[in-house]
């Protein structure tokens, strides 16, 4: 399930709800991304996530479908914020459930790696020295590329 939100959400409440009633789930992996209050020496006051309405929902759905195609997931949740957020606020939550732990853990890592490089979001940081657009990191591309070789298979 995919949710794209312009308002804050409560990750612990989402995790509490996730697959609570199921007794066939052996492992649940989650990843929560939050706004940090600093990057290196620079203080971050806020982060604004711009996105591409329409394409974002489409890409998120594709990424979820790809995870479900690759791993036997019993459930899968992706919540992604857009708009302005302050330090400590959740940006993205990924949760995966499977009978076995390897599927849940790998799918969770896959989802966040692909979200970072394939979903049309852009981060604007408000710092003590003004606002700046976050640049894409090569390490994110490398992390996403780990999963790329399996796409053709």
């Amino acid at each position, binding site marked *: 399930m995919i949710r794209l939100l312009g308002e804050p959400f409560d990750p612990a409440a989402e995790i509490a709800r996730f697959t609570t009633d199921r007794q066939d789930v052996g492992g649940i992996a989650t990843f929560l*991304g939050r706004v940090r209050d600093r990057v290196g020496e620079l203080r971050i006051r806020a982060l604004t*996530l*711009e*996105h*591409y309405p*329409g*394409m974002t929902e*489409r890409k998120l759905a594709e990424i979820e479908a790809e995870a479900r195609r690759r791993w036997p997931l019993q459930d899968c949740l992706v919540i*992604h914020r857009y708009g302005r957020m302050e330090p400590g606020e959740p*940006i*993205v939550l990924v949760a995966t459930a499977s009978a076995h732990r390897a599927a849940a853990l790998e799918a969770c890592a896959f989802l*966040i790696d692909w*979200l*970072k*490089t*394939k*979903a*049309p*979001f*852009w*981060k*604007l940081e408000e710092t003590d020295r003004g606002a700046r*657009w*976050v*640049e*894409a*990191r090569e390490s*994110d591309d490398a992390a996403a590329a780990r999963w790329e070789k399996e796409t053709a298979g």
Partner: protein
Amino acid sequence: MKLRYFAWLRQRTGLAEEEVEPPPEVHCVADLKHWLADRHPRFGEVLAAPGVVRCAVDQEYAEDDTPLEGAREVAFFPPVTGG
């Protein structure tokens, strides 16, 4: 054809979207970029730098040689940084 600009490319064009009718010689994304460089000089400045300007045609990632025939919406943006 609707054009959309995101993140700092939006700041370069000064607008989030516009409706355009490119001339018939604009067949692919590269042609469109070339035509837009005249329309938005500050956007044109960064078009040459490799990997800086990404494109989507009808909400699918596109390359310079992606054809524009029948395209309704073309978007330009920097590499994504979500998650």
